[in-house]
């Protein structure tokens, strides 16, 4: 189990993470969401012992991760860089990591190489970005660690390869209870893989819960009224975001759907319906509620 206890991380005067506390259970797929500079990568680097927290503790199975070989042996971190492997072949990369990770699984490596059909004897400088990323994925999965940390790791993969990689990840989670922690701007990816998500904004944790309860606590309501109401008139609701187009108001609202509907029925709506929410919309609503300019969010 991973625990962040009041973790603070500063870079000079800039606060990157501000008293973050969260728990990640073993065997879960945990998605980290947040705008650029929210602190997702910092959190992952703290988790694999690259960074040291200025305050608070990062514990893996109740042991501090920083400078702890045992704990670090259970972690594999894949970031969004691949240039460091330019002068290596995949086999050389495998040999390099195999030296450090004693649970390295040759059979997994062979199987994934076969699936991806990557050339094993060519320098990675000749690879495309997607091929390099595949190679790193193969190594990360072959290391056989309990925790796999992915920082924007799907970037550069083509759709077919994304599906393959996702399938492999899910298989690994089912086979050996791999805990997956991934940060991504691609909310669809998180939606597809993760069962828990956390949303970070400007170093603060906005929420951390299982994906189902994220959807359950958030609703997108479309309503039209005979009178000219605006969202401000519904002060009994916890409206995160609203948009009025003609007489139709679309609102992101927190709370129980039945209570929301009952409340709005008092305003005699001509149209009142709940429309399906995407994770992306929840993300945008939450971010806007916290003062983020939605126009600046990457999709």
């Amino acid at each position, binding site marked *: 189990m991973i625990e962040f206890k009041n973790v603070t991380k500063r870079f000079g005067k800039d606060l990157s993470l501000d008293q973050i506390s969260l728990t990640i259970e073993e065997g879960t797929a945990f998605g980290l969401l947040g705008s650029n500079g929210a602190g997702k990568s910092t959190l992952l680097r703290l988790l694999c012992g690259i960074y040291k927290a200025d305050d608070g503790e990062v514990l893996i199975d109740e042991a501090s991760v920083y400078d702890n*070989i045992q704990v670090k042996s259970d972690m594999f971190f894949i970031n969004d860089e691949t240039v460091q492997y330019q002068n290596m072949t995949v086999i050389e990369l495998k040999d390099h990591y195999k*030296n450090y990770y*004693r649970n390295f699984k040759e059979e997994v490596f062979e199987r994934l190489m076969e699936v991806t059909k990557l050339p094993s004897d060519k320098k990675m400088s000749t690879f495309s970005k997607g091929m390099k990323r595949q190679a790193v994925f193969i190594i990360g999965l072959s290391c056989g660690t309990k925790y796999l940390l992915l920082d924007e790791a799907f970037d550069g993969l083509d759709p077919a390869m994304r599906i393959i990689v996702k399938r492999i990840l899910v298989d690994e989670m089912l086979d050996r209870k791999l805990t997956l922690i991934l940060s991504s701007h691609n909310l669809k990816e998180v939606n597809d893989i993760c069962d828990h998500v956390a949303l970070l904004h400007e170093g603060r944790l906005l929420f951390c819960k299982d994906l189902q309860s994220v959807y359950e606590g958030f609703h997108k309501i479309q309503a039209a009224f005979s009178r000219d109401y605006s969202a401000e008139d519904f002060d009994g609701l916890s409206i995160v975001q609203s948009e009025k187009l003609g007489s139709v108001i679309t609102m992101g609202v927190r709370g129980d759907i039945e209570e929301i509907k009952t409340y709005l029925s008092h305003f005699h709506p001509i149209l009142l319906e709940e429309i399906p929410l995407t994770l992306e919309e929840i993300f945008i609503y939450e971010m806007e509620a916290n003062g983020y300019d939605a126009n600046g969010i990457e999709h």
Partner: protein
Amino acid sequence: MTQTASSTSFFGISLKEKLKNKRFWTILIITNLLTGPLYILNHYYFDSQSSIWITILASLVIGASAFVIPLSFFDYLYQKTKIDDVLKLPLTRKQLFMSDYLSGLILYLVPIIGQFLLSMLLLLLRTTRFINSILEYDVTMDDSFLRMLRLVFFTYLFIIVGLMFLYTLTVFVLSCVGNTFEAITASLYINLLIPGVIYSVGYLLLNRLFGISFRTLFQQLLYFTSPGGILLYWFNNLNRFLYSGTGLWTLFLALLMTLGILFISYRNFIRRKAESVGTGFVNRIFYYFIMASLTFLLAAFFYQLDINFITSVSLLAFIFLTFEVITNRGFQKFYRSILRFAIISAITGCSIFLIDTTEGFGVVYRTTDISNIKSVSIRYNGVLDPDTTAYDNSIILKDPENIRAVLAFHQRVIDDYIVSKISSENPNMVRVPVEATKYSNYPDSQTTEAIPEEYYYVYLPTYDIEISFDVKNGIDYTRFYSVSFDQRMLLASIDLSDEYIDQIVKQNSNPGSIIVSDVYDYSSISYPMRKEKIQELYHCLARDMKKLTMEEYLTPSKPTRFKIGEIPILESYTETLAFLADNYVNLDTFSTKTIYNNSVANNFGILAPIENTNSKPLYYYGYYSYAATSPMYVNSEQIEQFREEIITLLDHAQYQYITTTPCYRIIVGKWSYVIPPEYTDLAEQLYDKLR
């Protein structure tokens, strides 16, 4: 299940990883073969120097590798793309540092040790009968070859320690910086700044202080505090000093420095944050150390050159602020750079001003009471030998009488300095009336200045002397003075003390043989002798010297003609002379006629006495006293013409003689010899004839 890398295997893994760059290691091995082994092959097998440039270039490449290897092995400290991949590995920071440091060092040194072994093997093979039969000339395992082997061994020892130092210093720099530009530039200029600052503090500032010696205080510091210093020591001491106690001590201190720097590098490495990558100087103290050192070095240099204040400050500001702009990548918060410059230059200026005006905080006048002195060591070879710095060995004095003499001498030197500061008169100058110099000759003068009509000033030579005080309470200290002969004479009583004689005799004893040399032409003959016999000789010599009176020592009744080692043998050394006669040492070669035939023909001159008017004692002495500016030289015809007179003067000329009574001296070869006052008539007659 938790998996761990074996705690003992991380080093092996690192070594294996680093070895993967086969191209680089191959080049390094070939480069190593092109240095020592190639030089030895060419020099000792083919008697050729043709490959010397290849050897020099290859050596430079090996030296540069001490930068390149750490820059490559610790690249994650200044390359953002690599830091995650290295720090995520299941290694502690300590393991990571030690494995990268040691694997780099081992891979760097193994080829050098290999070339050392190969060089030694090639040298040893050169003495084999087989190789000698093939090649043109024979090399045998004689004393000189063994000395050379020892020199090669110690040269390699110095090179290995120096390169270890350079490698470690580069690692230290890398632990303090966070990007490629600073990693390369700081690695280069830290190597210049360390000796530069030591030199500027020592030579430019403290060496200006009276009695404070750069050599004793700072030169030694220079030798072991930087890789360049080790190279300098090696270069300056390509002789027995390389493997003397001083050489080994220098090596030991350099190793200690290396370990110290390694420890600081390790601390920096452990403490530095991963996110520091990309910042110029991760360790700001290191940056300020560099900037303060640079400012101090330049300020001291400008001060020495007497560049005026405004120009100095402007130049310093320009250099300092340029560095700041480069380091800060622009002009942001430039007022801070100006403030920093103001603070650093104020500290530098105040330091220089304080050192200069307080004369090293009064350290120049430091003396110690005899009750607080354990011993005094003095680089001194007797009052007659002014060239004290030519000897590596010091005489250690513990006899209270001797210490008292040294303290009196020291006090006199300081008192004279104080007087000279107040008065405008140079203490080493005598004022000579024009009429007194009727023969236009001045004793030992280096320069003369004419004063209108009445006087000449004659500057007397000074002699270097170095004294180290070993004190009971407090810090030991060393002083280095250039003193007049008059001041030196205060030490004369030491020359006849038992402890001085015992040490000077021991220092002059030569194992395996005795060396007898001529005091005129300095030609020497070596007489091989058993160790016991040599010891017996030196016992005789010590006993004879201890019997001497001060009068006989300073003004011997009969001239000496030869020395054993560096010790002149007087006629009164009866035991020594008897020993030499018993052991078939031929002393006939030192006759006056031989001197005339061998030495006089080359150069002969006469120096007339003069009188001075400012009542300072003027000493007339022979031995190492250099020739005056205008002695009366004799041409070859005159040498033949006045043969008898010259031989008569040679009969009485004294090599070891000191008097204040005005007397003539003769010059033979490049040394002068005193004609005692009782033979002044003889010298004057010849002098007048020559005029």
